Structure formats: C-alpha cells, structure tokens
C-alpha cells in the first residue's frame, strides 16, 4: 500500500519487506517471489533429469554396453522418471504460473494462505533433494522405475526408501498448493468476478487443484504402505508377506492416472490464454472449455485400469476401463476444436508464445491419438511395455505439458521480469526444440510397434537405426533447450524494457505494470464484463 496511484511504481522484485537480500527471497510470502523460487529450482532439477535422459540416449546408440552398465541404466531411468514426474511435471505449472498469475488474474493481492504457500515450497525442496540424493547415497540408485511396482520395490536392495519418501513429501506439498488455490478461488475473487467471469487458466487450475487434493492422499498412503512393508515387514502387496501385488497397481494408478491430468490441465489452461490474445478475439466456447476441464478431471478418476490390461484384471473391467478411456478423449477434443476456432478469422500475430501454443496442439494430438491405440485393449496388449508407450507419454507430457510450459514462459516473461526476450533467438530455439523433439520421439513409435521393449539398456540389432535417429534428435532437442533457456536467462536482466501490455492481452495481469508491484493492484479492480472482452470492434467481425 506504499505506492498510491500517483506515486512511483516499485516492482515486486525491488520491494523490500521485513528481510533484505537473499533472506528476503527465502522467507518471502509474496506469491510472485514464491513462484520464481519454484521456477529456479525446477529449471535446475529439469537439467539434472534432462542430462540423465541424454546419457540414456547415448547408451542406446548401439546394442550392448556403450557407456554404462545395466544397473546404472536402471537407476538412471528411475531417477529420470521420479524427478521429471514428481519434481517437475506435476508441480511446475501450478507452482510457477499458478502461484504467480492466479491471484493477479482473479484480482487478488495474494493467495489465501501465503505462509502455507512458502511452507509447501520448502516441502517441495526437501522432497526434490531426497529424490536426487537417492541416486547417489548408500545402496545405489533405486531401480524400480518411477512406478515402484511391488514386489520388486519391496525387495530391491537399492535406495527405494529415499525415493518413496521423496514422492510422499512432494505429494504433500502438491496437496497444500492445491488446497491453497481452491480456497483462493472461492474466497478472493475481485468484486464482480463471478465464477463465469474467471479466465480459463484459473479455471484449469481449479480443476487441477481438486485432483491434487482428492487423488494425492491415495498415493501418499500407498507409498507409506510400501515403506511399512519394507521397514516393518507388514504385508500389504508383497506375496511373500501375504499381500497382493495387483492391489498395489490399482492404488498406485488411482492416483497416478489422475496425476496425468494434473500435468496437462494447467498446460491446456495456458494455451487457452494465449490463443485469444494473439488472435485478438474472444475465446471460442468459453463454457465448453471450462466444463471440459471439469469433465476431464472427473472422468480421469475412473480410467486408471487402462494401465493394467496385462496385469490379470478381468475381461469385464478391461472393457469398462477401455470405454471410459475413450470417453476422456471427448472433452480433450472439444478443447482442440475450440482453440482452432478461436484462431479462425482472428487477426493472428505469429509471435513466439503462439508458435509454442500451436506446437502444443500438434504434439498433443499425436500423443492423444496414440493414447487411443493404448486405450483399446487389443492393441494395448500388443504394444504394452514397449517404446511405443515411451513415445506416447513423452508426446503428451513433454510435447503437451512441456511445450505449454515454454509457451507460458514466452507469454508471461515480459510480465514476470519486465523485460523482452529476443524474438529471433526464440524462433531459432523453437526450431531446434520442435525438430529435435519429433526426431527424438517419433522413431520410438515405430520401433515400439516392431517390439522394442521399454526400460531395456540392450536391444536387438534391428532396432539400431531407430535408436540412432532418436539419439541424434536428443542432441538437437538439448541444443534447443540451451538456446531457449539462454535467451530467457540473458534477457531477464538485459532485455529491452517491456511495456505493461506487449501482446495487447485483456486479462487482468496485462492491466497492471510490468513487473507488477508488491501488492499487484493499487486498487482492487471491479469486474463488469466477461473475460476475453476485446471491445466492440473485434466482437463484430
């Protein structure tokens, strides 16, 4: 409240609270600074996991042992998965962009529980560190895969416990973030902002937050049971102790499938913000997009069995889960049609955020269609546990959520740092990323169909062509990552000063200075029209 309307603008980056300097960052309860803390940590962990990924690609360039032994490889794909899933993909979008923009977009000064927000950041950090530590200390890196399937995970002599604890703590952090967002949206919307005047990124976070709150405790208790099984020898899942391993798979996927929607829904929310801005047109089908988010969140609870077609579940339940899986495709497709219709007839300006958003649609659709291949029982049994699955979920998670993350980064960068990045470098980075991504993962579909199993460090000579192309793609992709991150990091401090609204966006975050002030708004705004209102001229096409 230090700056009045006429006073000089002090951005949140320069704002000094009770503590100064580094401590001012580490003990901040400002949602924007917490968002940035997440961003920096996630970039670091992302590079750790990406380097593990590229090392695996190098190992797979030729059959037999190339640069590492089988056990090291097992550890690498496990830690790569655990870090990527639990430390990056699940928390990234809600924790970074959600924290930063959710309060601003609904016209609030902060989230409902700022201290809890900081607490969940530290839980996240502790969990992430446990995850990385499990690779390096004691009995060797865990080798169960990120899915921790019992009985192997209750018997393996490696650091499985550290990884389980990491996932448990990260889950707790995710629950608290979700809880915070739900309460924020229920209680802190600006006057006049009814539920149906809320922009769609907050809506997607709302759907996500409910999944975080309702599904994560199930994986929490499941991981605790595996820990109890290992430490106290209490039998739940391990047949040697009387338990049932298929029950573990059920409980694990009851969370972990909805978790896929925790990953993708905020990504969909981000591109939903980008399309109207860059076509200068209201979003097509606001209500349809909103309800399809909720529908995905709801139906997503009941499809976990499609991970278990080959686990020995009954024909009836396989039929049931297959049907429901196909049902999820409907709301996803509704969104795609709406995005394309938003572009139709708009005055399109092809800037880097839109380029990433369009790539998102393209890659997400390849991932989605191959998801149908996996969702139908007959074809799934053919390609289960092959490289086809690897390609499919990388298209969804990296091509979908990852590209949406990049899109959001390029879209909100001027607002976050108050600077512009270099457009040309952004295009070059995108070119490398997009090409590298497809060269890396598309061959995996083909060799997967031909029978290349996933998680194998060795393979038959006939798969080598595909593997070599993939590895080349991996390096192109990595180059693209370095160009993109380099461009953003360099220009965060040195770029041209960004105006308050470089893209002519209409949601609330563009109506305040870049970077925003400590309290976001000098005066809480009054909302008197629907979101994505571009004025009468663009309404009448």
């Amino acid at each position, binding site marked *: 409240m230090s700056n009045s309307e006429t006073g000089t603008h002090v951005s949140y980056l320069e704002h000094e609270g009770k503590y100064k300097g580094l401590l001012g960052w580490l003990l901040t309860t400002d949602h924007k600074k917490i968002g940035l803390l997440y961003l920096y940590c996630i970039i670091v962990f992302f590079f750790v996991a990406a380097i593990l990924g590229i090392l695996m690609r190098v190992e797979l360039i030729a059959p037999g042992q190339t640069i590492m032994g089988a056990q090291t490889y097992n550890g690498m794909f496990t830690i790569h998965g655990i870090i990527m899933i639990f430390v990056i993909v699940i928390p990234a979008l809600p924790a970074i962009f959600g924290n930063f923009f959710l309060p601003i977009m609904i016209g609030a000064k902060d989230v*409902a*529980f700022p201290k*809890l927000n900081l607490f969940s950041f530290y839980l996240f950090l502790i969990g992430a560190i446990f995850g990385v530590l499990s690779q390096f200390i004691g009995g060797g890196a865990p080798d169960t895969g990120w899915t921790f399937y019992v009985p192997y995970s209750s018997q393996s002599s490696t650091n499985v416990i550290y990884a389980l604890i990491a996932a448990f703590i990260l889950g707790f952090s995710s*629950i608290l973030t979700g*809880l*915070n967002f*739900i*309460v924020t949206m*229920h*209680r*802190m919307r600006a006057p006049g902002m009814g539920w149906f005047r809320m922009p769609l990124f907050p809506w997607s976070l709302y759907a996500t937050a409910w999944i975080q*709150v*309702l599904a*994560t*405790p*199930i994986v*929490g*208790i*499941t991981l*605790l*049971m595996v820990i*109890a099984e290992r430490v*106290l*020898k*209490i*039998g*739940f899942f391990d047949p040697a*102790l*009387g*338990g*049932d391993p298929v*029950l573990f798979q059920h*409980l694990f996927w009851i969370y972990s499938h909805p978790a896929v929607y925790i990953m993708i829904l905020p990504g969909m929310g981000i591109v939903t913000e980008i399309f109207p801005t860059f076509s200068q047109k209201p979003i097509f089908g606001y209500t349809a997009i909103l309800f399809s988010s909720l529908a995905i969140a709801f139906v997503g609870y009941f499809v976990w069995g499609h991970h278990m077609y080959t686990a020995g579940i009954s024909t009836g339940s396989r039929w049931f889960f297959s049907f429901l899986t196909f049902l999820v495709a409907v709301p996803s497709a509704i969104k795609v049609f709406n995005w394309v219709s938003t572009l139709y007839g708009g005055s399109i300006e092809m800037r880097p955020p839109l380029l990433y958003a369009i790539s998102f649609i393209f890659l997400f659709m390849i991932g989605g269609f191959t998801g149908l291949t996996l969702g139908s029982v007959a074809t799934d049994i053919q390609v289960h546990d092959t490289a086809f699955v690897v390609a499919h979920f990388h298209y969804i998670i990296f091509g979908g959520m990852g590209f949406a993350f990049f899109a959001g980064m390029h879209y909100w960068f001027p607002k976050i740092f108050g600077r512009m990045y270099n457009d040309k470098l952004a295009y070059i980075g995108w070119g490398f990323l997009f090409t590298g991504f497809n060269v890396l993962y598309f061959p995996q579909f083909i060799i997967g169909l031909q029978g290349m199993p996933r998680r194998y460090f060795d393979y038959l000579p006939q798969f080598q062509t595909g593997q070599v192309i993939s590895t080349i793609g991996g390096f192109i992709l990595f180059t693209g990552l370095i160009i993109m991150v380099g461009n953003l990091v360099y220009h965060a401090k040195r770029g041209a000063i960004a105006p308050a609204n470089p893209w002519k966006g209409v949601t609330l975050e563009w109506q305040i200075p870049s970077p925003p002030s400590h309290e976001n708004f000098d005066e809480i705004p009054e909302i008197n029209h629907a979101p994505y209102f571009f004025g009468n001229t663009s309404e009448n096409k």
Partner: protein
Amino acid sequence: MSTHSIHSEQIESETGKLGMWIFLLTELFLFGGLFLVYAVFRAQYSEAFHAGAEELNAFIGTLNTVFLLVSSMTVAMAITAIQKDKKNLAIFLILVTLILAGLFMMNKYFEWSHKFEFKLYPGSEVLKNLPRGELLFFGLYFMMTGLHAIHVLIGMTLLAINIFKIKNGEVSSKHYLHLENTGLYWHLVDLIWIFLFPLLYLIT
C-alpha cells in the same frame, strides 16, 4: 493490525476454516486408501478376519472409544468457553481433553505390548505362520491403529500449543480460529477411530 474491522476478521476466519475442511478431506482420503485395502482383503479372507477380530480385546477398544468421544465433547466445550471469554475454563477443558487423549494412548500402549508379548508383531515368526488372511489382518491392524495413533499425537501437540496461545492472548474470544481448527482436527481423529473400532474389533 488491530484496526481490522470485525467484518474482515470474519472473512479471515471463514477462509481459514474452508482450508481446514479441505485438509480434513485429504486426511479422510489418506485413511480411505487403507479402508479400501481392508475392504478388499476382508472380502477375500472373511473367515480369517473374523478370527483376527476375536483376538482383539473389545473391552479396551470400547473404553478407548469412550475416551475419544468424551474428549471430542470437551474440546467443543473449550471452543464455546473461549467464545464466551472464559480463558481459565477453556484451558481446563483442553487439559481434560489432553488427559483423555493420554489415557487413550496409554491403553493403546498396553494393547500393543500385550500383542508383542505373544510375539504378534509385524515380521515375527508367530505372525508369519498364521494363515494368510490373519497375517493381513494384523498387518492392517498395526498400520491403521499406528497411523491413527500418530494423528492422536499430532492432535495432542496442537491442543498443547493452544494452551500457550490462550495464555499469551493469541487465541481469544475474538481470535479463536486456531482453536476451532484444532477442534475440527480432533473431531476427525475421533471420527476415524469411530470407523476403525467396529471394523477391527466388533465385526466378527
């Protein structure tokens, strides 16, 4: 911020309570996972679960249920007391709650050590030689009551903190959200026990 109007005080407390309710929902789901496992195994090994339940002492279980139910009442009375600005009464009622919780834990301790005397603990030879269903029953018994006991301890800590907060004025007739949320948490601990007790001790 003593200038806060009563109105914004109320908003803050409503927000805090909404957060607590959602948190309690996640706690229910946490135990829900265990209840699910219980349901699956009970359906598969209903006779063994019957035999397992016979081994448990329903008298101690009933006594513990009474302790928790009464403690839920006293904590609710403590909230009413603080609303009426009767600090000493509130502290007294919280102390009674703590004593009842302590009695519950003491009973639990005797119950568990009694099991241990008969070499009935996870990983023991005796347990391993029991039929598979009974093995699973006792596994669930220790896990469920153990996790519940951890929740009792957390609840006791929260209650103890409230005593200090009342003493130094942080919890008062105007600001009692902290005590109210602790009360909600305590009711949850109670509620989960209400489900655990019949499932483990009574249904035979």
